[in-house]
């Protein structure tokens, strides 16, 4: 990818400032919804670093998401506010450490094996929390006081405040976008996408493929952990479902819907999927039936996600371009 230009930076800044205005314009419910979308979007963007740019279809990212969420709740003192500065780095580090072990083992395989192995290891963590009492078992755990960032006695950031929380989620999403986008413009990013496109050639060029993939996998898990930490803080509750593979698969739906070759794509995917879920739940009792059919239709009719849908609706720039064209890899995210 091209290096980040000052124009891209300005556009990012403008988008963040515009998004930061949201709480002044809409009721609380939508602010909460937007924060949820930003958190799931962060998860999906993180996942896409592995899936879209690393070519590693992982089905265990929910485990990293949930692990960090559990870390926050387990590290928090029962009646006092946990310190953001202490718990956030620890939660992210725990997710990254788990990813290092799982990655070292899973990256010995590729393709469909990798999917199966990550699925199995992710479910191992799910059952660990589901079947043992230390994480509250299948009932989960409550977080009674939200994390704060304080200097001395002054509280600078209190995640209990919905607007503050929304801004924190916005910062996390924007930071994640910037980090991934920057990473892809470095030689490391080139090595990662080269290994995805042609592993043998990348190896022949002297790229340490396994190490590059492992770093990308761990980083992607750490960012998923950031999202999981925020999600636990938003709802004040963690349950084993947070680690389960259904969430991993839902995040994959967001990734594919948004487009795997764009850094910000999965964020758009998260908005559509989360909005769709809320809408279907509201109007239809058997909403999962419709939701499942929509996912199937997406795979069969519009494998390129929103870009394909736009093209089908006649809004496309280039008619008939295969959505997963390699040229897309060079596009600015």
């Amino acid at each position, binding site marked *: 990818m091209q290096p980040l230009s000052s124009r891209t930076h300005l556009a990012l800044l403008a988008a963040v400032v515009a998004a930061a205005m949201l709480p002044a314009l809409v009721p609380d419910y939508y602010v909460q919804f937007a924060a949820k979308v930003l958190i799931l979007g962060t998860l999906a963007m993180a996942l896409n670093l592995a899936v879209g740019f690393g070519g590693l*279809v992982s089905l265990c990212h929910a485990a990293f998401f949930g692990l960090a969420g559990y870390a926050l709740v387990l590290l928090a003192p029962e009646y006092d506010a946990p310190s953001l500065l202490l718990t956030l780095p620890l939660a992210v580090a725990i997710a990254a450490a788990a990813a290092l072990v799982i990655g070292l083992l899973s990256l010995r395989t590729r393709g469909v*094996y990798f*999917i199966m192995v990550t699925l*199995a290891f992710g479910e*191992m963590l799910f059952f660990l929390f589901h079947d043992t009492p230390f994480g509250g078992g299948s009932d989960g755990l409550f977080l009674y006081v939200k994390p704060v960032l304080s200097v001395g006695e002054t509280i600078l950031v209190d995640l209990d405040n919905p607007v503050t929380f929304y801004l924190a989620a916005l910062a996390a999403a924007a930071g994640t976008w910037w980090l991934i986008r920057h990473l892809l413009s470095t030689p490391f990013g080139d090595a990662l996408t080269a290994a995805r496109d042609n592993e043998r050639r990348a190896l022949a060029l002297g790229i340490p493929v396994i190490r590059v993939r492992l770093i990308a996998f761990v980083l992607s898990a750490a960012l998923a952990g950031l999202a999981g930490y925020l999600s636990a803080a938003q709802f004040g509750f963690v349950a084993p479902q947070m680690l389960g593979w259904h969430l991993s698969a839902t995040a*994959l739906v967001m990734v594919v819907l948004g487009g795997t070759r764009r850094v910000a794509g999965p964020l758009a995917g998260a908005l559509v999927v989360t909005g769709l879920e809320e809408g279907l739940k509201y109007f239809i009792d058997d909403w999962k*039936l419709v939701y*499942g*059919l929509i996912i*199937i239709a997406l795979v069969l009719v519009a494998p390129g996600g929103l870009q394909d849908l736009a093209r089908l609706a006649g809004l496309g720039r280039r008619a008939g371009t295969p959505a997963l064209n390699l040229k897309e890899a060079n596009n600015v995210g």
Partner: protein
Amino acid sequence: MDIGTFAIQLLNAVQYGLVLFLVASGLTLVFGILGVINLAHGVFYMLGAYLAWWLTVATGNFAVGILGAFAISFLVGMALESVFIRRLYGRDHLSQVLLSFGLILVVDELRQMLFGRDVQSVPLPEWLSGSLPLTDVLNYPVYRIVVSLFCLAIAVAIFLVIRRTRIGMVVRAGAENREMTRALGIPFDSVNRYVFAIGIALAALAGAVIAPISTVFPGMGDGMLILSFVVVVLGGIGSVPGAAIGALLIGLIDTFGKVFMPELAGILVYVLMAAVLIVRPTGILGKREV
């Protein structure tokens, strides 16, 4: 542990392993021959159990429940292959994962609409509900032995069909080299539909025969799906003998793990998988390169 308890645990382990083999063999065949990774495999295990419960209660005949679950799932498999799965041949794994995830949601919701979300149990007919005396004080349920023998018979049948029949020859040729098989004019594509339907039906059959022993509940397919994946990773993708070895290994490790190390039993299976990945990343009987 005295010899009687050991024998009971061993019988349990083998029975568990054989049921797991039924599920995993379907998964590994579908992947080996169709090249499709089917995450919806576990949901058919669950559906088989619900179908067996519904048919047994409705007709009062347990055999109708088992055979009906198998037959209905086979037909559902044929329909699914011709409508959805065949569009996935040659597509990337990501599409296959997503489509089968969508299928899970659809089948699960249909199950909820048809059978509800309650936990059910399947009554056994009288001649199957007795116990055999193993020693003076220990008994072993007849039905568990029948399940083991039944699964063993199915496993032998699968091996015979693959090794000794013309259809099996086509299946083996297709698993070996898809393009070459097509190029030689072997009607390989029409076999795909049957392989997928049989794979689904085997999972449903396993769910149906296990229904009287375990309870029938909505999430029962998820655990089975993960274990089947571990079996396939252990044995090597596409290898039916590998699946048999993997399934029996998991049956033994899980059952005896629960006896000797109850708090670690849930993890042992994954430790085994990690060990196999370190030593042989393509599985015990897998090809060297995938």
